[in-house]
């Protein structure tokens, strides 16, 4: 019992650093969720392009980033680019790396959702006089987002939050990096990592609650 009290005391002492780390984690997770979604929408648009070459190139992009471990990409940019004269901050590397990776996944989710859209609606929109881009913006995207938003896109948001913990490996001091510091200072690895797990679980639960709310409001009209 005294062990736990002592640990909590240390957690309180580390409080500002842990909170700063948590802030960095949330900053990164929210940023890459947004940039990954926007870039994913762009890639998705190209995957249903009328031009075969564009479709093939974007399919190759998606396959490459889904088939490559994210950590390889992060290391390539953080450790591989400086000798070539390009030095990027850990946050920049994290945002670029995650965005490229998450965009590929989101594009794939949206492409799968696109298969669930009634093609007759898209033909009707063209028959009304809408351009390819307008059909995408006004009919395809709202439906694909709704169909993919739950559960695929929210799962991706959860993965973004959890996977952001790997960026401590490129010196970005996010929440998990601070927990590592805490654990190393008192050798209470079990308690420290348990604390990290609980905090991540709490944040993920918040995303799940938000997703359920979203499901009720945006998905219902399509069913």
């Amino acid at each position, binding site marked *: 019992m005294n062990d736990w009290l002592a640990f909590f005391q240390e957690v309180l002492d580390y409080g500002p650093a842990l909170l700063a780390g948590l802030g960095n984690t949330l900053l990164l997770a929210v940023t890459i969720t947004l940039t990954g979604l926007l870039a994913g929408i762009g890639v998705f648009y190209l995957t249903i392009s009328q031009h075969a070459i564009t479709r093939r190139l974007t399919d190759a992009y998606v396959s490459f980033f889904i088939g490559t471990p994210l950590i390889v990409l992060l290391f390539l940019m953080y450790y591989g680019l400086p000798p070539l004269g390009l030095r990027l901050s850990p946050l920049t590397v994290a945002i670029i790396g995650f965005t490229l990776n998450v965009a590929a996944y989101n594009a794939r989710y949206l492409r799968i959702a696109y298969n669930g859209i009634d093609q007759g609606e898209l033909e009707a929109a063209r*028959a*009304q006089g809408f351009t390819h881009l307008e059909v995408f913006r*006004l*009919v395809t995207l709202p439906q694909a987002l709704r169909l993919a938003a739950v559960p695929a896109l929210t799962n991706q948001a959860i993965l973004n939050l959890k996977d952001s913990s790997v960026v401590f490996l490129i010196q970005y001091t996010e929440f998990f990096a601070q927990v590592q510091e805490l654990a190393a200072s008192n050798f209470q690895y079990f308690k420290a990592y348990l604390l990290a797990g609980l905090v991540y679980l709490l944040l993920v639960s918040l995303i799940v609650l938000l997703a359920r709310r979203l499901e009720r409001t945006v998905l219902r009209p399509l069913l």
Partner: protein
Amino acid sequence: MALLTVRNLVKDFEGRRVLDGIDLDLEEGQVKVVMGPSGCGKSTLLRCLNRLIEPTAGQIRFEGEDILRPGTDVRALRQRIGFVFQNFALYRHLTALENIKLGLRKLRHFSEAQATERARAELRRMELETHGDKYPAQLSGGQKQRVAIARALAMDPKVLFFDEPTSALDPRMSREVITLINRLFLDNVTMLCVTHDVTVARYISDSVLFLDQGRVRAEGDADHLLDQHQDPHISAFFGRGARGV
């Protein structure tokens, strides 16, 4: 001058000739029904006329303008042609009212208030004024088709194309839609309707065009074509062959 003139229209799909020299004239205020066996090219013909499908050869003039010439504003052309589909094709993420408003807002640049007023008027015309806030999934088949017609009419098209407007409906809903098309017929709305429905051909058309294997096999008034035409293919299609009528 005819509103729509088609001459020698040809469409090939992967080496197969689907339309083989179609001629068609549609006058303003006229209602023409296109009939024929499945796969004879009826739906392809409609889609060629507003360039949803690009014809292989031939000439199409709409309001005197050659719409196959390079540089044709296809977007503007399609806005002059209302299109009602077999499976309704309502945008299912939008309510009935929003379905009608979308084209008015984005293509005709109506203000929000103008578009709402116009969309409500079209819903009233279709006797659907209490259904404006419903999503397509909450409407019956007949109601969906009436919203689709309202959506097309709201754009003030020169002509309405119908592609099998009743074939996805049960008999009761089908009657609802036929009654409505009949009302448009009485209002002198120009229509070109692809259908298998003999009731539509008989009561709501000025003339019937019978297509077979991509060619016009016969054209004339509905009663003659449906009851008295001597062509064995046409007789068989309307179920008269066996009795030798």
